[in-house]
C-alpha cells in the first residue's frame, strides 16, 4: 500500500510547480530591480559619463550644422541654453538630425535609442541652463480635461485645429497633427517652441495647465469620436467632399440602376 500513502514535503506533487513559481518570482524581481537601477543611472543628468557619451554622439551627428561645441554655424543655431527638453523633443521625435533644409524640420523615424537621446539631451543641458525634461506626473494625462480643452482652444487650436488634426501656416510651414504625440513631447514642445511654434513658458501657461492640455489631447487620442469615423477631424471640407463623392455618388449610381431597365 505504498502507492496510497500521501506524499508530503518535497515529494508533494505540486512541489515542482511551487519551485518553478519561486524561481520565476526571484528572477523577475531581480530583473526588475536591475532594470530600475539602470533606468536611474540613465536618467542621471549630472553623471559625467552620460555627458561624455552625449558629447561624442553630438560631435559625430550634430556638429556639422550646430558646431563642434554647439556654438552654432550658418546652417544651424547655437544650442547653448536650449535645455534638455529641446533636444529630447527634436531628436526624440526624429526631427533631428535634420534630413534637409526646408520650411521646417520634418518628422522621420527616430535615429537614436532612448538612452542615446537622453545622453545627447544632458550633454546639451550641461552647456547652459534651459528647460529640463518634464516629470512624469505632468505628462501622464492625469489632469482636468475640460480645463485643458478650453486652454487648447484658446492657445493652440488656431494652428493645430480643435481636435489636434494639424493645420497650415505660411510659406509651406505647418502645425503638425497631435494625434500620436506622447505627453512628454507635447510638454517639451510647449516649453521650448520648436520650429515655428511659440514658447509657452510657465508664466504663460503653468505646469498644471500644461498637464491639463496634455490630458485633453490624451482624451482625444484615446477616445474615438462618438459619431463614427472622424474623416480626419478636419471639419467641413472633408464632410463636403464625402457627401459629394460617396453620398451623391452612391445615389447617382442608384438612379442609373433604377432607370436602367427601360432601355
Amino acid at each position, binding site marked *: 500500500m505504498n502507492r496510497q500513502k500521501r506524499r508530503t514535503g518535497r515529494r508533494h506533487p505540486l512541489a515542482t510547480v511551487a519551485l518553478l513559481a519561486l524561481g520565476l518570482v526571484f528572477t523577475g524581481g531581480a530583473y526588475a530591480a536591475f532594470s530600475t537601477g539602470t533606468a536611474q543611472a540613465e536618467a542621471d543628468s549630472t553623471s559625467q559619463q552620460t555627458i561624455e557619451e552625449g558629447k561624442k554622439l553630438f560631435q559625430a551627428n550634430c556638429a556639422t550644422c550646430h558646431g563642434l561645441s554647439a556654438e552654432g554655424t550658418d546652417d544651424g543655431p547655437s544650442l547653448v541654453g536650449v535645455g534638455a527638453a529641446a533636444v529630447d523633443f527634436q531628436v526624440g521625435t526624429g526631427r533631428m538630425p535634420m534630413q534637409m533644409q526646408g520650411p521646417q524640420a520634418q518628422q522621420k523615424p527616430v535615429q537614436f535609442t532612448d538612452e542615446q537621446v537622453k545622453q545627447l539631451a544632458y550633454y546639451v543641458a550641461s552647456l547652459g541652463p534651459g528647460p529640463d525634461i518634464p516629470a512624469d506626473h505632468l505628462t501622464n494625462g492625469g489632469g482636468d480635461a475640460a480645463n485643458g480643452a478650453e486652454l487648447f482652444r484658446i492657445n493652440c*487650436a488656431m494652428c493645430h485645429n*480643435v481636435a489636434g488634426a494639424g493645420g497650415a501656416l505660411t510659406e509651406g510651414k505647418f502645425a503638425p497633427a497631435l494625434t500620436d504625440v506622447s505627453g512628454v513631447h507635447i510638454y517639451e514642445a510647449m516649453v521650448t517652441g520648436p520650429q515655428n511654434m511659440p514658447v509657452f513658458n510657465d508664466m504663460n501657461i503653468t505646469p498644471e495647465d500644461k498637464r491639463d492640455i496634455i490630458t485633453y489631447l490624451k482624451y482625444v487620442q484615446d477616445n474615438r469620436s462618438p459619431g463614427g469615423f472622424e474623416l480626419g477631424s478636419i471639419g467641413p471640407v472633408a464632410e463636403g467632399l464625402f457627401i459629394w463623392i460617396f453620398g451623391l455618388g452612391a*445615389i447617382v449610381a442608384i438612379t442609373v440602376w433604377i432607370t436602367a431597365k*427601360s432601355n
Partner: protein
Amino acid sequence: MSTATTNAPQKRSFTAAASVYVNERTSLAGFVKELGRKAFPDHWSFLLGEVALFSFVVVLISGTFLTFFFQASMVEVHYDGSYVPLKGVEMSVAMASTLDISFDIRGGLFVRQMHHWAALLFVAAIGLHMLRIFFTGAFRKPREFNWLIGFVLFVLAMAEGFTGYSLPDDLLSGNGLAIINGMVKGLPLIGTWTSFLLFGGEFPGTAIVGRLYTLHILLLPALVVALIAIHLVFVVVHKHTQYAGPGKTQQNAVGPPILPIYAAKAGGFFFIIFGVLALIASLFTINPIWNYGPYDPSPVSAGTQPDWYIGFADGALRLIPPGWEFVWLDRTWSFNILVPLIAIGIFLVLVAAYPFIEAWIKGDKREHHIADRPRNAPTRTAIGAAGVTFYAGLWAAASSDILATHFSLTMEGVIHALQFVVIVGPFIAYFVTKRVCLALQKKDREIVLHGYESGRIVKLPGGEFIEVHQPLDEYDRWRLVSFESYAPLMIRPNARGRITPAQHVRAALSRWFFEDRIAPVSRGELEASHHDEHH
C-alpha cells in the same frame, strides 16, 4: 372585406367602396386620373430633382425631432452633461442643449448627424439638378419661370443651411457668424447699423441664435415648401422634358405613367435615399461640436470652414490680395469685402437670368420639350463650363489651408494658383469646351454619314483596299440628327425703319453664339452618302 355597400347594387371590394366613399366627398377621381396618367420620361438624370426633394423630406423629419430638444437661447449655463472634456465649461443653453441631443438623448446624435448629412445632400442634389437643367437646355420656353423658382430654392437652401450651421453656438458656427458680421460691416455707410440691427447690438450679442432659429424652422422652411409645391405644379403643367428619340416629339412625353409604375419607383427611391442617409449618419461623424467647444470670440480653429455650399463665398474672400482696404473721407472702404460680394452677386444674377438672356439672343419664341445634348449647344455648354470653373475655383479656395497641408504645398502657392483658376480658368474652359463640343458634333456627323468603322478591310476586284463601315440603324441615327442648328440673327430695321443699338448688340451676341456651328445631317446629305456607298 365587402362591408360598406350603401347604394351599390352588387358586392364591391373594400378598396373600391372606400374609394367611392372618398370620391363622393372630394371629387378626387378626376385629379388622380389626370395625374396618374402623366407620363414621366425615364432617364437617370431626371431623378436628381427627386434626390433633392427626398433629402429635404429627410431634413424635415429629422429636424422636427431636433426641435423637441433644442433650445434656442443664449443664456449662459455651466455644462453638466456626460461629455467629460466639457464638464463645467460655461456655454450658452443652445450649445448645452445641442450637446445633450448628442450625448444624453436616445438616438439624438444619430438624428442630428442625419439632419446635417441630409442637408448637405439636399444642397448638393440641387446643384447637380441645376447643372443637368442648364446643360440640356431644359430651362427654355416654357420653363424659364421654373428655372427662376429653382434658383430661388437653391439660395433658400443655402440660407437654411447657414442658419442651421449657426444654431449650435459652438466655436465653428460662431466663427461663421463672425465672418458674416465682418462682411455686413464692410458695406459702406449702412454696414455698422445693419450689423447692430441683425445681432441686436454689438456682435455676438445674445439675440442672434433665437432670431436664426425662427428663420431656420419657420420662415425659410415655409418658403421652401411653398416654392417646391409651385415648382412641382409647373413640372406637371409643362410636362417633363425628354431626350430626342424615335416617337418622342415636342408634343408628347414618352415614359411610364405616374400611377402605378412611376409612383412605386419614386416611393422606393425615397426609402433608398433615407437608407443611404441613415447609413452615412450612423457611420460618419459630422460637425463634432464637442471638439469645437462653446463660442468665444477669441479662438479660431485651424481648418475653420463653412459647410460646402457657402464655400464659394468664403473662397472669394480668401482670394483677395492684401491691401484692398483703405481710409478715405474719414471712412474705411473695405474693397477686400465689397469686390467678392459684388463678384458673387453678379455671378448669381447671371445664373438666374440666363434663360432670359439666351432666349433674347436667339430670338426663339417656340416651346422646347426635347432636351438638348450638351454638345449640340456648344456655346451654352462652353458658358456653363466657364461658370463651373469660376465656381469651382472659389469653392476650392475655401479649403486652401487643407489643400496646402494635405498636398505639402505652400499656402501662397495654392492661393495664387486658384486666383489664376478663377480669373483665367473660365476663359480656358470656355474655349476648350466649345472646341470639344464642335469636334463631338463633327464626329456625330461622320458616324451618321458613314457609319461606324468596322475594322474589316476588303480588297476590291480592281486591287483597291477599303474599310467596310457599319451603317447606323434608324433609332441610333434619330438620336444623332434631331437637333436644331441656329444661324446668327440678321440685323433688320424695325417697323420705323431704324436699327436700334439693342439690335446691334443682339446681332453681335447672336454671332458669338452661332458663328461656329455644325448643322445636323439633312435627309439629302444622308441619301447622297448612301448613294456614294452603293457605287
